[in-house]
């Protein structure tokens, strides 16, 4: 049983979800309400991780954050460290990998908000940003929660991208899925079984708790 790997995966999932909340909400807002004609291109880029093999995505991320890339050099001058094969590098990869799982539910939630409510808010003198926080976001809470759960669960179970970008350093980049792969490779089936079971249990509890909670919260939600 790999407690260290499990703990690392949970930390990675939490941070990824938080970062995706911070960048996914404005991104989804832009995708939903921007009048730009070329926004379909951005939509396609955001959705790429859904169809690209994780190894392809991981390979490009590795190149993009490597010590010879502009991003890697900038990171090195700022922190003195390197992104590949570090927890921070893993975090960057996870955020990109799970981006559509956050942005798409957010955006569909925003799009479902009645445009007349948004116009009513503007006419009452409330700015676009404040309208987002006072009308659009509160009316999209179910979609926002869905996006967060999907990001969390997707990060918890990722494998290919992690392997490409993070490698397999215990306590730094060895996530729970990699530790299971390792155990199976070395024919340590008992350890693999325990870790798999723990991951299964955690995933089920997280999903069951959120869906259960959601039902109770939405039942009392004034929208219904």
């Amino acid at each position: 049983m790999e407690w260290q790997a499990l703990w690392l995966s949970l930390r990675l999932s939490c941070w990824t979800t938080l970062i995706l909340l911070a960048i996914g909400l404005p991104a989804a807002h832009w995708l939903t309400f921007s009048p730009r004609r070329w926004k379909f291109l951005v939509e396609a880029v955001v959705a790429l991780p859904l169809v690209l093999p994780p190894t392809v995505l991981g390979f490009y991320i590795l190149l993009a954050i490597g010590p010879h890339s502009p991003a890697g050099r900038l990171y090195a001058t700022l922190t003195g460290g390197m992104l590949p094969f570090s927890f921070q590098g893993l975090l960057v990869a996870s955020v990109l990998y799970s981006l559509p799982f956050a942005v798409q539910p957010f955006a569909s939630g925003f799009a479902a908000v009645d445009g007349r409510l948004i116009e009513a808010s503007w006419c009452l003198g409330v700015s676009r940003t404040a309208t987002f926080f006072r009308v659009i976001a509160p009316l999209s809470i179910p979609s926002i929660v869905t996006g967060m759960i999907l990001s969390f669960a997707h990060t918890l179970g990722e494998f290919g991208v992690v392997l490409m970008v993070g490698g397999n350093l215990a306590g730094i980049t060895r996530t729970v899925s990699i530790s299971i792969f390792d155990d199976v490779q070395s024919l340590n089936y008992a350890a693999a079984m325990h870790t798999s079971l723990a991951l299964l249990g955690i995933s089920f509890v997280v999903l069951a708790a959120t869906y259960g909670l959601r039902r109770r919260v939405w039942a009392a939600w004034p929208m219904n």
Partner: protein
Amino acid sequence: MADELNVDVRKRHAGGPEIAAALVLRLSAHSVTVLFGPSGAGKSTVLRMVAGLDKPDEGSIRCGGEVWYDGARRVNQAPQKRRVGYLSQDYALFPHLTVRGNVAYGAHGLGVEEVLASFALTDLAARYPRQLSGGQLQRVALARALAAQPRVLLLDEPLSALDAPARLRMRADLRQLLTSVQMPAIVVTHDRNEALSLGDSIAVMIDGKLRQAGAVGSVFDFPADADVADAVGIETICPARVVSRSAGLVTVEIGQARLVAVDTGGGSAEVFACIRAESVTIERNPPGNPTSARNHLAGRIVSLMPEGPLARVVLDCGFRLTAIVTRQAEEEMRLREGERVTAAVKATSIRIVPRG
């Protein structure tokens, strides 16, 4: 100029008529201007352009000393800056906020309780919009708009979301509310009764163009052209030819029939004669007793249609003439379809408008 809302805008959009509207609203007058016209005439779009929700193609919108929109100078103020109280057809209350939350939304914490009290909403303050009736929703929407202290109210078909009995009740209430809030208002409606009961002045829009503006009574009684006459519900509008003019009276010919009317046709030979059904009286016998009516027309009853306590009678006098009589008169005169009667119309009740 300082206290006027001055709108002069043009806008083309796919699937609708080109909109061209110019109107001036005095902000000091606390009066209600009705923007009236058939559905699809572009009334709502004009209102949305004033609110800043739709952008005109060209023209200008000025309010007091401020420029809200100027196509030539590329000025287009955001709705947030314009301080208009805009009410969409379905009121658009925030479903996740209580009545108090809705009213307080744009109020900066000022005077919320006073506004709630003055709209008799204090008892409903903790309710959510889904728990309110249509009439209550409308009061909340008005209260919310007024709590943000707008300079002008813009109401888009304010009664259309209500069912028929509530609409009648709210019509009187709304007029009273609009009078009591001392705020200039523009009300969009396609309903003649609403226009008559809510408006002080009226602007008639047809096919995207503003056709006539003025006091409600004068526009309804003296439409400028046949389209406006039709829009304000004048039942008989007939093409006619001027035969002679003298002493302020004009004689026109419609087929075989001749009518004498007060001359308002502006000198043209081809005109429309517009006659309201209420001003046509029906006589059973050929005219023997002299009446003040200048025009007596022999005709045959084409159709008889009961409308509550009244009946609508369509006559064929060489042209179709619609009259309204009481059911009682219909009974007494024993009017039947196909029978011959005489219609009488005063010269002052016929409105002559130029044709072409």
